[in-house]
């Protein structure tokens, strides 16, 4: 199949193309330099249209136990947002925690072609993969959660060799078919079960005697030494606690130059100034990030309305459970190895704290200079459902719209924020970096997020409009691996995405030790823990893509 996309205005930051008119050629799902004189089977006239690679959401909770729990907890979320069968699309429902099919359709209709689930518990990875495999039109991948699991904490507290920890980390990534490692409230999920209700960066876990700082360093080093492209994905300590900006700054300096990704940093940027002892720490965070090139972040912007927060951080979710709206929540242990907390939440624009959270997220976006190191997320569904992305893009690209919105929120919060005095507006090029090129580079996806020859033909075509929310809500065309899947914001073909993974090398000696550990302590045998290729690919829908690790070559 040969396709020609004629005369579009291309934004392809990975190849330094900023709004140039170009023709694009697709041969069998891949972008090529030219068709070598062959006649294209299809040609699309894209004159006057904006062409970007398919967008990548690098942190979105679309699979795994907590999403299922959120769905079970909130039948009203489904009743209030039914999605009847329409054309090729099967029925679904859900606003904050949509069903798998609806998730895929809605992402595709916004021009997204990949989404990464950031909290895959190793022991529940199979279920997460099954669920993600049921999301149509979207490439997926998962970061597997370590740092509060007993085996790792035992290794660390016994002062084990880093080599052994590396082997364990690599073995876990491979057997759970993940693309990275995430750590959630390092050690805190475990500490919660030992009756600690708080665990600061340098506070010892009462049983294992290790601190979050040690855990972060050990895991960040493991990920780095194994050559996994995506740096350690960190949901830090003290989420949502006023004053946690200090913890976050200590976390940044404490990692000592190792690559680290701080996720939903908005929830970790709170100061204690002012009458209400709650203030924005965004300026200090942005300054630290501008100065430390090893750090990347995604924002976790909140947007007003009803949503549900779903996290592995049972310690912090338990602390926030009193704010649940509607008034019901779940906090639970998972297989003695991790935790989970689901708290429905309504962000209100007239509420001081919520309004300031909104400002802090936007300040973070606007004060960090390098768009290659900041990513556009709402931590779906924790800050807002992913369907709010076009609105968020407009807030970033349109200063007067932003100031109009600022005028409607809690005036006390608005007065405390510097947001009104920030003039920056994101350009289309910068949006393309944040949502495409940067995300692909961060994850080590060499053939995604750009439009150069050899890239997979995941392409989104928009009509440039003054109202960026409208523009990004409804792309004209979306191609997934070279197939036209969305036309004028409507799904016209349903295809299934790929699973992105990495397979770092390790010494197989770890398996004997793990086998013994599984036999003694776990609810399943080691052989059942490891996910096989056929479990993903067996139904002929998803393909596993393995991205290279660069062991020892990175400095």
């Amino acid at each position, binding site marked *: 199949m040969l396709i020609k996309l004629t005369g579009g205005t291309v934004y392809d930051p990975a190849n330094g193309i900023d709004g140039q008119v170009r023709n694009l050629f697709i041969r069998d799902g891949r972008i090529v330099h030219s068709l070598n004189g062959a006649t294209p089977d299809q040609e699309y006239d894209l004159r006057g249209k904006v062409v970007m690679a398919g967008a990548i959401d690098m942190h979105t909770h679309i699979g795994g136990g907590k999403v299922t729990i959120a769905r079970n907890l909130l*039948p*009203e979320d489904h009743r209030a947002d039914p999605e009847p069968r329409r054309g090729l699309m099967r029925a679904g429902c859900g606003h904050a925690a949509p069903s798998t099919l609806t998730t895929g359709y809605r992402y595709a209709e916004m021009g997204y072609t990949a989404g990464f689930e950031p909290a895959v518990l190793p022991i529940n990875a199979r279920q997460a993969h099954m669920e993600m495999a049921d999301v149509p039109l979207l490439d997926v991948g998962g970061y597997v959660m370590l740092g509060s699991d007993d085996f790792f904490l035992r290794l660390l507290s016994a002062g084990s060799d880093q080599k052994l920890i590396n082997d364990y980390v690599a073995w876990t990534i491979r057997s759970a078919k993940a693309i990275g490692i995430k750590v959630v409230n390092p050690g805190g999920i475990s500490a919660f079960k030992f009756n600690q209700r708080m665990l600061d960066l340098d506070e010892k876990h009462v049983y294992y005697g290790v601190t979050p700082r040690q855990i972060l360093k050990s895991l960040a080093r493991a990920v780095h030494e194994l050559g996994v492209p995506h740096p350690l994905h960190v949901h830090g300590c003290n989420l949502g606690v006023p004053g946690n900006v200090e913890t976050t700054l200590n976390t940044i300096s404490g990692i000592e130059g190792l690559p680290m990704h701080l996720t939903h940093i908005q929830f970790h940027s709170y100061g204690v100034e002012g009458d209400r002892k709650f203030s924005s720490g965004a300026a200090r965070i942005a300054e630290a990030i501008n100065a430390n090139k090893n750090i990347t972040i995604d924002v976790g912007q909140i947007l007003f309305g009803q949503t549900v927060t779903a996290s592995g951080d049972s310690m912090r979710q338990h602390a926030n459970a009193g704010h649940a709206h*509607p008034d019901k929540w779940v906090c639970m242990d998972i297989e003695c190895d991790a935790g989970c907390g689901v708290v429905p939440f309504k962000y209100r624009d007239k509420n001081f704290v919520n309004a300031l959270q909104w400002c802090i997220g936007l300040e973070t976006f606007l004060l960090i200079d390098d768009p290659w190191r900041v990513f556009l997320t709402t931590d779906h569904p924790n800050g807002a459902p992913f369907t709010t992305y076009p609105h968020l893009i407009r807030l970033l690209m349109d200063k007067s719209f932003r100031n109009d919105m600022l005028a409607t929120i809690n005036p006390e919060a608005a007065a405390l924020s510097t947001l009104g005095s920030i003039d920056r507006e994101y350009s289309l090029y910068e949006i393309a970096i944040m949502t495409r090129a940067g995300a692909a580079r961060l994850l080590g996806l060499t053939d995604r997020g750009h439009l150069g020859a050899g890239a997979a033909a995941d392409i989104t075509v928009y009509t440039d409009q003054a109202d960026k929310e409208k523009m990004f809500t409804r792309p004209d065309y979306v191609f997934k691996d070279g197939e036209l899947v969305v036309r004028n914001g409507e799904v016209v073909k349903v295809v299934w995405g790929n699973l992105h993974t990495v397979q770092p090398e390790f010494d197989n000696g770890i398996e004997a030790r793990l086998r013994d550990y599984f036999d003694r302590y776990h609810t399943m045998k080691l052989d059942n823990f490891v996910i096989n290729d056929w479990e993903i690919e067996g139904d002929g829908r998803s393909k596993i893509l393995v991205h290279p690790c660069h062991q020892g070559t990175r400095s």
Partner: protein
Amino acid sequence: MTALSFTLKSPLRQRLDASPLVPDRLLGKSPKEIATLDLQYGNRRIAAADLFDIAGDDAESVRISGSPKLDFAGRGMTRGSLIIDGDAGAYVGMHMKGGRLCVSGSAGLYAACELKGGIVEICGNAGDLLGSALPGNKKGMSEGVVIVRGDAGDRVGDHMRRGSILIEGNAGMYLGARMTAGTIAVRGRIGACAGYAMKRGTLLVYGSPVSIGATFNDCGLHTLGFLPLLLKGYQGLNTCFSETRACRSRVRRLVGDLSVQGKGEILLVA
């Protein structure tokens, strides 16, 4: 003007969502528009005239022939009257805010669930979860009156917030479970676990004797001054609860459920 009536041409073969057939949504529509109203019938859509013979012209007063498959009748209605001639399916009167809804037969599950106002009368029996909250919701019926001439099923008034449920027959298990407030009166017998986890509210029970949970505290026999006043409020509704004898009764007061807030009461009429 005669009532706008929808008479089934043949018995329903699938579940029908009858929620568009309420005065609010029929007023101001021409006969042709009403005939072509799109209804959800099983897994497909169907025009109203394909299922019903439609006659009459007064959309303030609607009659529908009954069927146990007729769901959501009177959903969200705010005015006028709706009469179901025969049985109704599930969710009859759900989210209703005003007006009068009468089922001449029996109603299925979740009748009058999350009722917000108006009067619902069921001449036959009512199924489980009468006047309760939808699954997962925290607030059941919050205003209005429900009258059941026959028996009601289990979990009547689950999560009920305000309003009155008057049952002239018997009621099943878990009567008034998780109630926050409101009044449920039962003329006949009640099942086990009445008032389970109720915080506030009143269960007025005439049938005797009943088993009461251990988390209810017996406060003895009383002549409560407020009781005649409460029952007087139900005069005009044409129920057995406004008879003179009922108003003069002494009651045994049991307070609970002490496993939660414990400000509710079960009044057993002596």
